[in-house]
């Protein structure tokens, strides 16, 4: 293992190199480009024995690696924003065909207005596409998630593609020390990049296969139910992979969520991605002031970790009751709330039968690269404290638009 000073994008490129995909195809878009450039370099330098294919669009990028996956090999692609939406058809397609493709997405705002900076509306728009979705907090976690994603996606119980999300610029372009594992370590962790003969969803020389087929109304439901069931059940293999990763590499988080100062927290911010780091800092500050603040970080949004969220907020290990919940995200589902808020609240409903729920506020912040400072997060916690005391608060609050709300 060697410690290198890497950006999130570079960390992803190393994670991909170490996972030895046979085919890489990607189309450039800011802020993902560095991943693609590094991988191209690695292939040219002979550090990665992959076919690097220059494609004409994101739609083609994902369709192309799907063709390669059907040939039974590990693949990689990466995109962002407009590119992710441009390939939207292929996301549903590859998920329905159950190909274990891994893709990195640099979370970026969607036009219009044009904006190249970070927010999460791109991946959240495709949350129902059938891809497992994870969100990295640090460059280290990004590298680790790439390796873990292959183990998860290719697991026969899962066979579902994985989208690894990194906040645009804030994570993709920020440098930090990253432990880069040795090739032998990763080789011992992952199966061969050539899938075994007979792996479902792949061509077979002895026994030819028809793939990506048509199914009528009755059969279609059966396929979709199975897809849903396996996605729900993927939480198990994800945890197994996390635990195996910790044993093998000596670091990591076990589980689809991660708590910080959570078990006695009265005011909890639920969030995802790199902003969790800032929330941690504010939690530490508030704790020194006697405020029982805490963080619940969602590492995965699909499968949605309902049980973990409920356990974190209401489980028997808790020493204090949660008095107010804030859901902080860089997204808005126009006409309702942020997508993550809708997800978390749907999970909370499961707990509603056990008693009254604490108030929950959706903080929409960081749209189009808007900076979220320590003071902003402090204000979110203050709003939660006031809501806990019974003050009426707007359910959805846009950072910086307080005057208009």
């Amino acid at each position, binding site marked *: 293992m060697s410690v290198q000073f890497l950006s999130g994008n570079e960390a992803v490129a190393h994670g991909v190199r170490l996972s030895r995909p*046979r085919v890489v195809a990607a189309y450039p878009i800011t802020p993902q480009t560095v991943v693609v450039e590094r991988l191209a370099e690695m292939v040219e330098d002979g550090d990665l024995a992959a076919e690097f294919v220059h494609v*004409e669009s994101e*739609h*083609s990028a994902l369709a192309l690696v799907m*063709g390669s996956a059907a040939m039974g*090999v590990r693949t990689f692609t990466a995109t962002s924003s407009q590119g992710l939406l441009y390939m939207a058809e292929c996301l549903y397609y590859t998920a329905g065909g159950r190909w274990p493709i891994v893709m990195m997405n640099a979370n970026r705002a969607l036009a219009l207005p044009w904006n190249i900076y970070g927010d999460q509306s791109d991946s959240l728009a495709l949350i129902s596409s059938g891809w497992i979705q994870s969100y990295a907090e640090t460059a280290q976690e990004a590298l680790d998630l790439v390796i873990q994603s292959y183990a998860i996606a290719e697991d026969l119980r899962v066979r579902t593609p994985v989208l690894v999300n990194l906040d645009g610029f804030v994570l993709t372009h920020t440098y930090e020390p990253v432990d880069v594992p040795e090739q032998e370590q990763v080789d011992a962790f992952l199966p061969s990049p050539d899938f075994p003969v007979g792996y479902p969803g792949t*061509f077979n020389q002895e026994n030819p296969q*028809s793939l990506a087929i048509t199914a009528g109304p009755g059969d279609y439901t059966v396929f979709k139910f199975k897809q849903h069931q396996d996605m729900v059940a993927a939480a198990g293999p994800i945890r197994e992979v996390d635990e195996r990763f910790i044993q093998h590499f000596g670091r990591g988080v076990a589980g689809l969520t991660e708590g910080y100062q959570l078990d006695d927290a009265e005011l909890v911010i639920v969030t995802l991605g790199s902003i969790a780091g800032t929330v941690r800092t504010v939690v530490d500050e508030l704790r020194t002031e006697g405020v029982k603040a805490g963080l619940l970080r969602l590492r995965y949004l699909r499968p949605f970790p309902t049980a973990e969220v409920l356990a974190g907020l209401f489980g028997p290990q808790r020493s204090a009751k949660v008095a107010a919940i804030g859901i902080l995200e860089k997204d808005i589902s126009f006409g309702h709330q942020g997508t993550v808020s809708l997800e978390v609240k749907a999970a909370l409903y499961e707990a509603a039968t056990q008693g009254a729920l604490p108030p929950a506020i959706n903080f929409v912040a960081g749209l189009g690269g808007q900076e979220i400072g320590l003071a902003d997060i402090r204000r979110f916690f203050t709003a939660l404290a006031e809501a806990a005391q019974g003050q009426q608060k707007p359910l959805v609050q846009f950072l910086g638009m307080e005057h208009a709300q």
Partner: protein
Amino acid sequence: MSISIKTLPNPEHFVGHKACGGCGGSLIVRWVLKVLGEKTHVVIPAGCMSAVGFIYPQMALGVNAIISPFAATGAVLSGIAAVVRAKGLTDVPVVGFAGDGATADIGLQSLSGALDRREKIIYICYDNEAYMNTGIQKSGATPWGVRTTTSPRGFRPELDAPKKDLLRIAAAHGIPYAATASVGYANDLLKKIEKAGQVDGPSFLHIFAPCPTGWGCEADATVQLGKSVVDTGLWPLLEWESRQLTINRQPKKFAPLEEYLAGQGRYRNITEDEIAALEAVRDRNWRELRAWNIHSSVNPDFG
């Protein structure tokens, strides 16, 4: 012995499909797979051939095959070709069968990428001159005068030759082999498939594929129409190889257009004047083809 309809291998690789009687597209798939054999990997985008061939649980293709997203035939072919390359596999033909809409319109970008990258693929456009699977809508390959459900009185644009010239588009990519063919000239078609299979790099075949359902013709008229479209000069049989154009069949005199147009409901309300205009466009096209032919033979670098 070179391939011909008489020496076509017996094994069938496309059976039990649900194409209409007399479907030119399905005939092409069947013939091509006989020529290229059981190791072929097939990509078919959304369209009639995928709709009739992959209905769960009854699969019609006896070789490895996959439906691609409508716009992505070239990309999925490329993904397969990349693994063939990576693994050093030999004798694995990678062939796409795409309709004219999938080729000339929505899939043109992806086709262009694959040709530009010199992928070792065989791309076959079976041209039934409209979007058939969605109910006979006009495509970028619909000829002047044709009735479709989106040009119910007959497609009459100002442009006198609207059908996109796919052979020239393919040739403009500088690929090693591009050709046109028709189901009416089977031996010519089969030889071109065989040749395409031997090319190192991309090859492109544009094949005339009558569609009785969409054209309002008899189900047993497919081969006859495939002949008369060539004999009338509307569908020249061409090969573009090593940057040179060859005109495979040079009729001394074109058969009258009426021979081809009659018996097709889609041309029902075309007038005599319009037929004369179509003839003039045809003649211009042939002058241009001959010029291209001479030019490319004289100086191959300028093909």
